[in-house]
C-alpha cells in the first residue's frame, strides 16, 4: 500500500476502510503511513465529525486498537507507534481520573487540546498543499515563451587607467626591481694573510721605524683597494706585535703608525 500514486484524499479513504473500526481482526500495515500522527489524523477523520469536535477518548481507543492489530515489520518504526500508544494511554488515564494539581505539568484537557491542534494543523497544511499543487504550474499548465530571443550582449571593454596609475606602475616596478636586483659586488680585498706575508717578508730589510703604509704594494690602485690594504696591513702589524715580532708606535691621534722589527735579544 503506497500513497505516492494516489491523491492524499483517496489515500485516506482507502486506509479508513481498513481501519480496525470497520474490519476488526484485519491485519494492518503501517508502511503506508507517515508515522503515528498520520494514523491519528486518519482515525480522527474516520469519526466523521469536524476535527474540532473529535473525541479524544475515542481516538485513544482507536489508536490502541490499531497498534494492537498492526503487523509490525520494522521495529524502529513500531517504536514511534508504541511511544504514541503509551502517551495516549497516559493521556486517557489523566482524562478519566480526577485532575490532581501537579506542578509544571499541563492539564489533561490542555494536552488533549494540543493533540487536537496538531491534528488540525496537519490537516490544514495538507489541504493547503493540495491547493498549492492544484495551481497552474509553469511548464505544466502554463508556458513561457518556447523560443525566447536572447538578448545578445556585446561587451566593449573600455579600460580606465589614469596617467598616475601608469607612472605608479612603472615606479613600483622600478622600486621592486631595485630591491630585487641589489648586487653586492665582489670587493677586491687585500687579505690579512697577504698583509702578514708581505710584512714578514719586508720587515727584516727595514732598519728602523718605518711608516706602516710604506709597505703598501706599488701596484695598489683605487680607493677601495687602498683602504683594504691599509686595514689589512694595520691588522697584520697588530698581530705581529702580539706575537712579539715587531713593535709599533703612533705618536699622535690620526698620526702615522710606525713599525720596526723587534730584536729578540732585547
Amino acid at each position, binding site marked *: 500500500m503506497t500513497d505516492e500514486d494516489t491523491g492524499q484524499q483517496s489515500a485516506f479513504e482507502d486506509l479508513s476502510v481498513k481501519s480496525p473500526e470497520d474490519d476488526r481482526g484485519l491485519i494492518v500495515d503501517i508502511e503506508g503511513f507517515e508515522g503515528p500522527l498520520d494514523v491519528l489524523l486518519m482515525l480522527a477523520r474516520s469519526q466523521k465529525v469536524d476535527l474540532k469536535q473529535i473525541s479524544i477518548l475515542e481516538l485513544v481507543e482507536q489508536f490502541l486498537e490499531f497498534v494492537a492489530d498492526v503487523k509490525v515489520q520494522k521495529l524502529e518504526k513500531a517504536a514511534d507507534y508504541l511511544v504514541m500508544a503509551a502517551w495516549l494511554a497516559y493521556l486517557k488515564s489523566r482524562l478519566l481520573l480526577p485532575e490532581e494539581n501537579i506542578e509544571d505539568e499541563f492539564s489533561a484537557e490542555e494536552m488533549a487540546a494540543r493533540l487536537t491542534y496538531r491534528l488540525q494543523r496537519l490537516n490544514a497544511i495538507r489541504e493547503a498543499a493540495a491547493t498549492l499543487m492544484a495551481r497552474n504550474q509553469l511548464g505544466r*499548465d502554463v508556458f513561457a515563451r518556447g523560443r525566447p530571443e536572447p538578448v545578445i550582449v556585446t561587451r566593449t571593454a573600455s579600460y580606465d587607467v589614469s596617467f598616475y596609475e601608469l607612472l605608479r606602475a612603472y615606479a613600483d616596478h622600478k622600486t621592486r626591481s631595485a630591491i630585487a636586483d641589489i648586487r653586492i659586488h665582489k670587493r677586491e680585498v687585500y687579505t690579512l694573510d697577504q698583509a702578514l706575508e708581505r710584512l714578514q717578508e719586508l720587515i727584516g730589510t727595514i732598519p728602523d721605524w718605518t711608516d706602516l703604509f710604506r709597505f703598501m704594494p706599488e701596484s695598489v690602485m683605487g680607493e677601495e683597494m687602498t683602504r683594504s690594504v691599509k686595514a689589512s696591513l694595520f691588522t697584520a702589524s697588530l698581530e705581529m706585535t702580539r706575537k712579539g715580532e715587531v713593535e709599533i708606535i703612533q705618536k699622535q691621534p690620526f698620526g702615522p703608525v710606525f713599525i720596526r722589527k723587534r730584536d729578540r735579544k732585547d
Partner: protein
Amino acid sequence: MEIIEQIRIIEALLFASDRPLSSIALAEGLPEGADVDHLLRDVQQQYHGRGVNLVEVAGKWMFQTAPDLAFLLRKEVAQERRLSRAAVETLAVISYHQPVTRTEVEEVRGVSLSKGILDTLMAADWVRPMGRRRTPGRPVTYGTTDHFLVHFGLDSIRDLPGLAELKAAGFLENVNTSRLNLLNDEKPTEEQPELPTYQPDIRE
C-alpha cells in the same frame, strides 16, 4: 517617444524572454521618465483574454500562455516527475511556515524528514536555506525561492492560497516542538523567528 512605441518596446522585451523581467530591467529599454508600471498595466490589459497573458510573478513580469488553455498544451511537454506526498507536504510546510527549521517541519508533519526530500526540493530550486534561527544550536532555516513563486504563479508568498485562513486559525504560529512531547513536559518557550533575509515573513 509615443506611448504606443513604449508599449511595443515592453511587449518586445517581455515576449523575447522566457523568464520574468523586473520593471527596472524593462525601464532600461525605455526613455527616461517612462511610467513603466502604467505601461505594464496597459499591456496586461491589452492581452487580457488572449491566448497569451501578461502576469506578475515574484515581483516581476512575464508573458505566459492562458491557464484555461492548459488542456491543449499539457500534452506537449514531457510528463513532469511527480513529487512524493512527503515532498509536497514538506514544500507546503516550508512555504507557509517560512522561515522554518528542519525540526519544525518534522514537528508539523509528525514524522522525521528523510534527507532526500529537502535535497529534492532544493534541486528543483523551490527551497533554499535562508539563514539561521537565533536559538541554541543556531539551526538553519528554510524558505522558498523566487523560482518557486514563478513556478506556481505567485507574486509573493503573501499570495499563497489559503494563507489567510491558516493564519486566522492559528496554524502558522511558531511551531512549538514540545506540544505533543508530553512525556517529558516542558513549558513551551516561544522562539523568536529570525527575520527573513530576502523575503518578507508571512507571519506577523
